[in-house]
């Protein structure tokens, strides 16, 4: 088996193993729920992405941007805890000794775990994208479907961020001090730190999720139609924001 074939089979079977687990089903369920909850109807009385009380029309561009931002933010949390013990699992399932007696190199074994985790995260991301596509049709504010608007943020924002996450899942599993509950707590603190930095500190070097590229453009576009946003220092941020009356929209 040459290197590419070997990686293919290692990744394929790791993906199968993961996709048949309960944790994967739970994360997929959460992803679909997020798709539903984060694209509220005009009368729902709340917003998830707040730009001074206005939001974009639910078209492909807006929802593509939203799914890229939300998935990187939330997948970093759920995805990490789902995938953080792939190497420990080999020991837990008592397959470790068999693997140790094979000629596979440490680099290939570890990199195959990183790439497999990356693949699992991509699958979840794609499920989220399809959930948001479905929400575009359900909410019916725009029936113009633009696949590039969904997949460009996925390619340029989400993918690099998920590759970093996949690497971290393995890193936290091979460094002894980062295994177990201590690693879980450290990662949670890191997630809070990076989330706060990404949302509160635009253009920051520490914006690991790459949210600012999309968010700043959304805010700029909103400011063109609603002048009060241009003078506001709030920018755009994620959270649960109750809205009274009908929400104002703009085209992004």
């Amino acid at each position, binding site marked *: *088996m040459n290197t590419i074939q070997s990686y293919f*089979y290692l990744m*394929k*079977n790791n993906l*199968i193993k993961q996709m048949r687990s309960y944790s994967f089903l739970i994360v997929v369920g959460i992803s679909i729920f997020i798709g539903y909850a984060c694209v509220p109807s005009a009368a729902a009385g709340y917003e998830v992405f707040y730009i001074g009380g206005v939001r974009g029309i639910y078209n492909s561009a807006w929802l593509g941007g939203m799914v890229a931002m939300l998935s990187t933010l939330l997948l970093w949390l759920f995805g990490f805890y789902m995938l953080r013990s792939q190497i420990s699992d080999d020991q837990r399932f008592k*397959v470790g*000794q*068999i693997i*140790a007696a*094979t000629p596979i190199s440490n680099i290939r074994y570890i990199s195959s775990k990183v790439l497999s985790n990356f693949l699992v995260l991509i699958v979840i991301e794609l499920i989220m994208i399809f959930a948001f596509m479905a929400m575009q049709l359900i909410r019916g504010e725009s029936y113009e479907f633009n696949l590039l608007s969904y997949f460009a943020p996925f390619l340029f924002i989400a993918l690099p961020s998920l590759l970093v996450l996949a690497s971290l899942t393995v890193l936290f599993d091979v460094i002894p001090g980062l295994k177990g509950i201590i690693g879980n707590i450290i990662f949670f603190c890191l997630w809070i730190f990076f989330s706060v930095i990404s949302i509160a500190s635009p253009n920051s070097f520490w914006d690991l999720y790459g949210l600012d590229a999309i968010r700043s453009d959304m805010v700029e576009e909103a400011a063109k139609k609603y002048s009060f946003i241009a003078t506001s220092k709030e920018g755009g941020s994620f959270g649960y924001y109750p809205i009274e009356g009908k929400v104002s929209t703009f085209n992004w």
Partner: protein
Amino acid sequence: MELDIQRVSKNSGSKQALQDVSLRLKPGVLGLLGPNGAGKSTLMRMLATIEKPSEGTIFWNGVDITKDPNLLRRELGYLPQDFGVYPNMNPMEFLEYMAAMKGLSVKSAKKRINELLEVLNLANDRKRLLGGFSGGMKQRVGIAQALLNDPSLLIVDEPTVGLDPQERIRFRNLLSTLSSDRIVILSTHIVTDIESIAPNIAVLSKGNLITYTSPEHLIQSVNDKVWNCIIPTTKLQEMQEKYTISSAIHRSDGVHARVVSDVRPIPHATSLPSSLEDAYLYYVSSLGVTQ
């Protein structure tokens, strides 16, 4: 093809798990016998390149595997005593995954997987998840993964645990067939498992190699040391405390105890032809393991 174990010792903490063991193996089955804690699994883990000896060296075809383990790993099939499988995979997927770990070519891996599933009677369950398999079926999957690369050295540690009598016989026959052109090391504490298939037997006890010989020699060496003693049931406990008893059958005239001892245990004891089990008990008990 030669596996040369030279004065190998293994310390684990303050305990010496293996002491100064030397063996030279050629194609065929080596039965590795010994009670629990004798050092069988430690020796096997070292031969499987998972652990390194504290002292001594192991050569595979003249190459020191403690320095270059990958050379042996490419030709090695290993079934550990306590192994597991991924419950969310089916046998095909698991074996495909292990074939990728072993670096087999796709074409030969697929062919080999299909052959092994047939031979090990798993073909009808190839699409079932391993999580639902019985202990014996998992054991057969473990055996299949060990044979994936058609290994020149096959190490199987307590492979018949969990197998029913029919499966044990089938497995013994499989090992016997495989041993013609490769070295097979079969570890067990069940003497009958190796009696019929191993031309060489090594007995380990408390980390020491007690003997390394053929089954015939091993049996011959205790020829005048096996006794049939008919005793009252009330005397059995006393007899067990004094001697090694390989079996005790309750009959109307008393207990027929099969005693392994250098001396006649009781005046009217009669000599019996020895078996491999008697020889095994004699050697491990003479070091105070069973007495």
